[in-house]
């Protein structure tokens, strides 16, 4: 029991190169932070891009700890930054990825979920399953990137939220906890090469 409590459980929030202040506002709101603590999360990493810094972070501080007034004793370590050349390390560390709907971030998130989930055995599956939550930017009109998130959500690879405000909702959060994603194995990249070869008139 003690071991499990010590094991870090990390949430990684990323907005890529976009401006998505509404998401950053919601993930730094006290209701969401206490939901994270109730869900036994120990660390919150936020890549907030062009937007405002998260509310819980005092100015010019990149690391800190959030203590929730409601759930006594529990604390959440946080780390924030604007950009990094590669998000790969944080993606890999995370147990839950909350991302904007950009194609690059979605695909990187799904790939990193697959890397973790493929090595889980059946006993660990439900408790340790790594998940990707994609939050649609409600302030963007005519956002065709929704298409990709919707298509992947309808095939159960990820969970989609239409508005960041849902993150504060207890029911929505329990849906995240109970969500069992389909494993994203990637595609057969070689199909393109073979199609090209057969177009040119010879077989592989």
């Amino acid at each position, binding site marked *: 029991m003690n071991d499990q409590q010590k094991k870090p459980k990390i949430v990684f929030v990323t907005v890529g190169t976009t401006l998505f202040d509404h998401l950053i506002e919601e993930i730094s709101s006290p209701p969401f932070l206490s939901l994270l603590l109730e869900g036994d999360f120990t660390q919150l990493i936020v890549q907030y891009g062009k937007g405002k810094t998260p509310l819980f972070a005092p100015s010019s501080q990149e690391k800190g700890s959030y203590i929730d007034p409601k759930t006594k004793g529990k604390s959440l370590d946080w780390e924030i930054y604007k950009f990094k050349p590669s998000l790969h390390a944080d993606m890999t560390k995370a147990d839950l990825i909350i991302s904007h709907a950009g*194609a*690059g971030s979605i*695909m990187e998130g799904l790939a990193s979920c697959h890397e973790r989930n493929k090595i889980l055995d059946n006993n660990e599956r439900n408790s340790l399953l790594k998940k990707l939550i994609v939050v649609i930017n409600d302030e963007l009109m005519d956002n*065709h*990137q929704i*298409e*990709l998130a*919707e*298509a992947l959500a309808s*095939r159960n690879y990820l969970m989609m939220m239409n508005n960041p405000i849902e993150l504060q909702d207890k029911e929505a959060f329990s849906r995240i906890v109970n969500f069992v994603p389909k494993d*994203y*194995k*990637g*595609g*057969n*990249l*070689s*199909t*393109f*090469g*073979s*199609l*090209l*070869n*057969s*177009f*040119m*008139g*010879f077989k*592989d």
Partner: protein
Amino acid sequence: MNFIMSPLDEFKTDVNVMLLFGKEFRIVLIKVLGIFCLFLSMILIRIFLVLREIKTQRQMRRIISSQMNMKRTKTLVVLGSGGHTTEMLHLLSSIQHEEVYSPIDYIVASTDTTSVKRIEALNSSNLGKGKKKMSLPPHQNIYQIPRSREVGQSYLTSIFTTLYSIFYTAHLILFEIQPDLLLINGPGTCLPVALWTFVARVLRLSRGNIIFIESFCRVKTLSLTGKILWIMGITDMFMVHWHEVLQKDMILLDCFIEHDP
């Protein structure tokens, strides 16, 4: 005399001018016009035949026999920047028998320096062998074409830069590169390249086969570039990644995601 001429007056003066030059001039003029019309109809017939050939190839998913006696396949790839470049580089890394598609040239927009760096970084000759990392077939040249409009440029000057860009591309495609195989995946910057490649094919300067791969992000609707190319019917293979946008004679790719049967 009235200073404002009616269209009829204009016509009359034209006739008068023609009469001035006499009969021989009119015969020459008719001959020139005749040759021009003949030439035009030949071009139109050629365009019709090429479009029919492309349609057949699209249905058969392969080059038809009349084009088979090839010595080389000069391959040209347009890198669109950002996500388009990422997708294209992944697809290119799946090419086997790279000796067939040689030489390979790239076209990038002149302001897109990251794409150039990415090609160099993934070039198979720069990577150690045995590594399972993504690698690209070796390439020959990277051409940079001027953008038709920079962000924030005024519309008046963008008319001239667009014209410059179109003629620059024409010179590059028709005289320098003459591609036998063109691989494009958007965005709009690849359209002039596709058009001039089609012209090169009509003029028999090269085989000029065009393969378009729609972006993976396009699930429900085709991109504007995709729509234009599909309506014009100048692509020999038109590939999409999702069932939702698949139409007859398009090819469904499973390069980035597996599909349910």
